[in-house]
């Protein structure tokens, strides 16, 4: 994987993105706006499931009305996110917060998958009335919680204080981030 990241970093477009004065900030700002679009609309979809908002609407009406926006937000957020990764591939790949974020996205994705599978099977039973199964409510709250953590870890990527270039770090941090470190250089220094 590190080799792929290193190869990506040598490609012309990656260098151009990385060195651009305005393009990178524009992509990052768009990424933030699309996060608002995605998470903000998802918030209302999930809150509807917990029965906190839009109770005049059935779950399927709510999903039909709002989920397209959430999906558009997700696609644009992913696209800009991939470009941000592509601009600085090696540093991102070895960034512990990036790794945590990817793990959390997988968890959030699995939760969404579980949710929609069950939703498409059973929604007719509880679509109109307020007796939404408890497990679905838990899944909605778990979705908000996990995506919040994704946002937090995503923001921390930019401030990585466990960067491979900031040695000495503890051995297990270097292991988790795949940092290649010549430990002899840091012998006798605290923290290793």
């Amino acid at each position, binding site marked *: 994987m590190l080799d792929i990241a290193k190869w990506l970093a040598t490609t012309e477009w990656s260098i151009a993105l990385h060195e651009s004065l305005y393009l990178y900030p524009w992509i990052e700002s768009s990424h933030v706006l699309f996060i608002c*679009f995605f998470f*903000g*609309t998802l918030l209302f979809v999930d809150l509807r499931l917990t029965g906190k908002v839009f109770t005049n609407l059935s779950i399927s009406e709510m999903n039909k009305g709002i989920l397209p926006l959430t999906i558009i937000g997700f696609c644009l957020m992913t696209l800009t996110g991939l470009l941000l990764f592509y601009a600085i591939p090696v540093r991102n790949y070895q960034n512990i917060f990036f790794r945590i974020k990817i793990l959390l996205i997988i968890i959030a994705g699995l939760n969404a998958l579980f949710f929609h599978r069950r939703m498409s099977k059973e929604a007719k039973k509880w679509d109109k009335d307020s007796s939404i199964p408890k497990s679905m409510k838990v899944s909605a709250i778990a979705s908000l919680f996990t995506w919040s953590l994704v946002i937090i870890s995503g923001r921390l990527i930019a401030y990585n204080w466990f960067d491979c270039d900031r040695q000495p770090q503890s051995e297990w941090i270097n292991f988790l981030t795949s940092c290649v470190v010549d430990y002899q250089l840091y012998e006798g220094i605290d923290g290793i």
Partner: protein
Amino acid sequence: MESNQIIELFYFFEDSFIGEYIRGSTWLFPVIESFHLIGLAVLGGSVVIGDFRLMGFILKKEKIGYVIKQTRVWFKFGFFILVSTGIPLFLSEAVKCFYSRAFWIKMICLVIGIAFTFLVRNPLVLKGYDGKLIPLLGFSSFFIWTVVAASGRWIGFS
């Protein structure tokens, strides 16, 4: 107030205990900023849903007053998170903010956004106004808050 008095005030903010405490920590600023971003997403969600309804893109069958009523609590909640995290972020780098054009654009648009939302958009909609200007109302609100969010992000680049 003259500009040198304002900069003195900004130095005073930056030298405050909270400002210094945040600057002295490696992780505090990033963590507060992360929560600021969550607040922005909460506020953003209620703006998107409210304004897209006003522009006629979504939930067309629902009355606009109902949609605004459902979203305004979350608007206020998002705003509360934004202010309570935004103030410490500002205190930690007040002088940088003073010299940042993005900061002043954000603050001016923020005042306009708040005034527009609470003095124009919400009262009109909640009083039952349903005229031709409704889509324009939605577009204006969406535009102002997008500028607030984007210029806010741009403070970090300046």
